[in-house]
């Protein structure tokens, strides 16, 4: 028989810095970030892999942080919304475009949306409307109807200005 699981120390490189905490094996990556590191920018929406609010970059690729246990990510590199800006007090081109195009309202899905769009632009600097919609298809937003998010991604990719 298995002994009851005991907490384990895990180290993950978060936004470029090794971060360590002692967690139960059942701790998901999103709970690790939020509850153990205090990085509350990554949000929880459904905890069953549908809404995308918890999206982070794992080794540069977007994944759902509710569908990963922190221990699985040991030693790997994770980027959260807190790590998207080039420097403190600055905004990335994409973050800037989200503000400019009013691509958010309540802000709850926004970190996951930014992660998905950041990845899209890294792969595809000038995505079409359809490609943008596909890239954010796994990120649910209840405020915006997605239109201004699509506009923001176009703006960030230099395709059209949201405002004349």
């Amino acid at each position: 028989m298995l002994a009851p699981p005991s907490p384990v120390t895990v180290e993950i490189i978060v936004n470029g810095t090794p971060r360590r905490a002692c967690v139960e094996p059942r701790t998901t990556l999103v709970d690790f970030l939020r509850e153990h590191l205090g990085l509350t920018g990554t949000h929880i929406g459904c905890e069953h892999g549908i809404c995308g609010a918890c999206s982070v970059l794992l080794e540069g690729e977007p994944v759902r942080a509710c569908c990963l246990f922190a221990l699985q990510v040991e030693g790997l590199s994770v980027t959260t919304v807190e790590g998207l800006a080039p420097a403190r007090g600055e905004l990335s081109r994409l973050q800037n475009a989200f503000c400019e195009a009013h691509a958010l309202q309540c802000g709850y899905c926004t970190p996951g949306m930014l992660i998905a769009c950041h990845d899209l632009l890294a792969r595809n600097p000038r995505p079409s409307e359809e490609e943008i919609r596909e890239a954010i298809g796994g990120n649910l937003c209840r405020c915006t109807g997605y239109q201004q998010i699509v506009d923001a991604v176009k703006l960030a990719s230099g395709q059209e200005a949201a405002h004349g």
Partner: protein
Amino acid sequence: MKAAPFAYVRAESLDHALDLLAAYGGEAKPIAGGQSLVPMMAMRLARPALLVDINRLPALKGVAVGPRCAVMGATTRQRAVEEDAALHRAVPLLRAALAWVGHVQTRNRGTVGGSLAHADPSAELPLAACVLDATLVLQSRAGGERRLSAADFFLAPMVTAAEEAECLTAIEWPVWEGPGVACAFEEVAIRHGDFAMAAAACQIQLDADGVCRRAALGLGGVAGTPLAFPDLAAQLEGRRIHERLAQEVAEAAAARSEPGSDTHADAEYRRHLAAVLLRRVLLRAAGAPARAPI
């Protein structure tokens, strides 16, 4: 929605993983991408006492495309498959199926073997495996290697022929040699990326005159397992696939489905969809004009 407690071991080698599965039998479960398993654990519908993480085993990753068969490690990510040009030429149905699977975040993490082992009857990859008659390679400490056809692997919803101590390690996808291979995959889900209410897939090979020389076809979401219909596929061989033939074959296949009902679709609707979708994929793959456009 927090998982019940479990112990976690990252397997150092395939042998290590198999040792753990042998030692802990039904209490242990391998985890690959976890895109289905983790949500089920969060809902406490799955509660393994030990998770054996097989993500970091190089032996289980990667694709080798040979002349007759493409061998794929079980933990090859769906996204890697989607982007593999050589694999796409060898087994075109895979990319066609993956276009309907989840979203970029889930495909980045989700593995091909994980989707097969999860055995959701409406999932796309199990349907592709059944249609192409893929071989699933299972390994265990006691039994060594065991190879099962997809048809023998899927037993019921979320139930496979894999023993508790067995780990799915590889999938062998048949490569159809020669020119004229075409495929199509289509499904109906209310929302893109969701599991299908019904799905249909086919891969065919046409000669220079447009006569079908080889065919495989199947249905998903309309029974406890994906369904392949080799006998119906055989009826296409030596013939041109036209509207009426496609319709007959599709209806014959749909008649053998045993769909269930849920809040989104009842059995009758699913069976109807099965016939429509199968007719459409056959015509699309064959390049014949479809009656109703997509």
